[in-house]
């Protein structure tokens, strides 16, 4: 899997220590050219955008987070106080816990379905499979806002077909917005929207697996399921873990769906997810400083989790 190298090996540390430096630089010189000015100029416009809309805002957010604003006494420098507050704020920690729980359940389910779908698509090439592939991808085209509104209507007793289903057999109607079901209802929206997308990613990866890799297994009489689990899945491990990272990042930033769903279900509290909490701190309680600290802490956490994920994967990959 040499192609995956750029993702896991951005640093030169990959080469074994004993290797002569000379051979390494020769290898590199075949790939890149030393035209420092031209190269830098190609990257410059992008770099400027990075500075203006990533580095400067991040720096500004960090600077904001180092002072506190209290309604009664105004703004003053407070060092890391906001971070201490953030990591001891029960509302924020509640939200964080909720998102972690949500992720632990929703991500494996979604990626499991996506992987199963991709394996089926890889093995079955009927017209029906093509239709499935196209339809499963459609929800990705629906903006998250519209998707959440749509599901809000679908969950509602007045508009939707599902809530009253149990009454047909004499049961109680389902309240999808009740506190006990809310997280599941949200999980379903996310699963609906993103499963097809992940399926396509994994399917493409499967298509790239050379057929020779499992021809032997076919001759040995292995069943399609055995081939799928023993050959194909290990072969696209890298793609699976990348899909997982991006999903984890997305889940940690969970915002749009609960923000929209709160219009249907007012029991979605101000700190339902960390990102929602940061939003409310800024836009409802006017505390931009604390909001920045929450955002920053969250971003840092996402970064650490994602990097750990990459790191662990690389270690495992290296051992395998």
């Amino acid at each position, binding site marked *: 899997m040499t192609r995956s190298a750029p993702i896991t090996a951005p640093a030169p540390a990959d080469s074994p220590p004993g290797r002569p430096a000379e051979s390494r630089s020769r290898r590199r010189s075949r790939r890149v050219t030393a035209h420092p000015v031209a190269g830098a100029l190609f990257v410059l416009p992008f770099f400027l955008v990075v500075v203006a809309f990533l580095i400067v805002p991040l720096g500004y957010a960090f600077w904001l987070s180092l002072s506190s604003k209290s309604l009664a006494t105004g703004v003053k420098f407070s060092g890391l106080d906001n971070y201490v507050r953030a990591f001891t704020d029960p509302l924020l920690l509640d939200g964080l816990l909720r998102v972690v729980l949500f992720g632990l359940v929703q991500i494996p389910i979604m990626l499991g379905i996506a992987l199963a779908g991709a394996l089926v698509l890889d093995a079955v090439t009927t017209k029906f499979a093509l239709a499935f*592939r196209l339809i499963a*991808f459609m929800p990705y085209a629906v903006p998250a*806002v519209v998707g959440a509104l749509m599901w809000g209507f679908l969950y509602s007793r007045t508009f939707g077909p599902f809530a009253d289903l149990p009454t047909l057999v004499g049961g109680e109607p389902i309240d999808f917005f009740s506190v006990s079901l809310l997280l599941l209802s949200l999980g379903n929206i996310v699963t609906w929207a993103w499963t*097809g997308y992940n399926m396509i990613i994994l399917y493409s990866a499967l298509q790239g697996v050379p057929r020779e890799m499992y021809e032997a297994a076919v001759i040995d009489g292995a069943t399609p399921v055995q081939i799928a689990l023993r050959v194909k899945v290990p072969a696209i491990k890298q793609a699976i873990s990348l899909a997982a990272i991006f999903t984890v990042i997305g889940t940690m930033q969970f915002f749009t769906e609960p923000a929209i769903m709160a219009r249907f279900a007012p029991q979605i509290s101000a700190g339902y997810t960390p990102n929602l909490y940061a939003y409310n701190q800024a836009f409802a309680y006017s505390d931009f400083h604390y909001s920045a600290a929450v955002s920053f802490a969250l*971003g840092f956490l996402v970064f650490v989790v994602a990097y750990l994920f990459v790191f662990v994967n690389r270690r495992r990959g290296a051992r395998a």
Partner: protein
Amino acid sequence: MKVKTRLPHLLMGVGILYFLVPLLWVVIAATKSQPDLLDSPALWFAEFNLFENIGQLFREDGGVYGKWLLNTALYSGLSALGATALAAAAGYGLARFQFLGKRLFETALLGMIMVPATALVLPTYLILAEVELVDTMWAVILPSLLSPFGAYLVRVYVDESVPVELIDAARIDRAGELRIFWQIVVPMMRPAIVTVFLFTLVATWNNYFLPLVMLSDAELYPLTVGLTTWFNTAQQEAGTRMLFNLVVTGSLLAIVPLVVAFVLLQRFWRSGASAGALK
């Protein structure tokens, strides 16, 4: 063989139902008047009111829905063009040149992909307010130009598909660097460029948080913000304004162009994925 594929087909059938039913609901609901929307069976047609709904949709609030549609197309089109151009140049520069700070920048690129976009919106607002760009189209477009993922994808693609020998040969022929990029490299990395374009287009088309914070003039809203505003009004003022049917019809018209484009262009997503970035 037939017997063996029965189970997969059954599962795919369930999947099709799951992914399709909500979309079908929007289609059906958009054909209903507001009273029917509340009263008639959810997954079957009532009196056909689609054209009245569409008419009302484009008349409500002085025809602002049409503006939202145009705004959305404009913002996502411009953002995607700009972001793709920047990412293509940067990805090529990183893949085929050596310069000071390159390694550091490449490592940082991975980190950038992981920065939560929502964490940036607030400080970006305060900065753009300083330069008086808030509540203009640029407040949505400029931050959307940032696509570290796009640059990364192009870099990987160029690494694999644009031979150094070709570039060296062009240099020997005394071709300028810009000309090499434009006439040789860009045509070779077209699949990656299309993929980046589509990714950034969708990202801006779907964006809610950024325009929500940046814009307060309803004439400048994109669809996502506009429809949400209508939905809130419909909830708060149930007695005086009937808007649920417009929210539903507006949602349908908002997703139709994207769904069609997606189905037609799906191979580019796959080519982007198999370009190596996600493999």
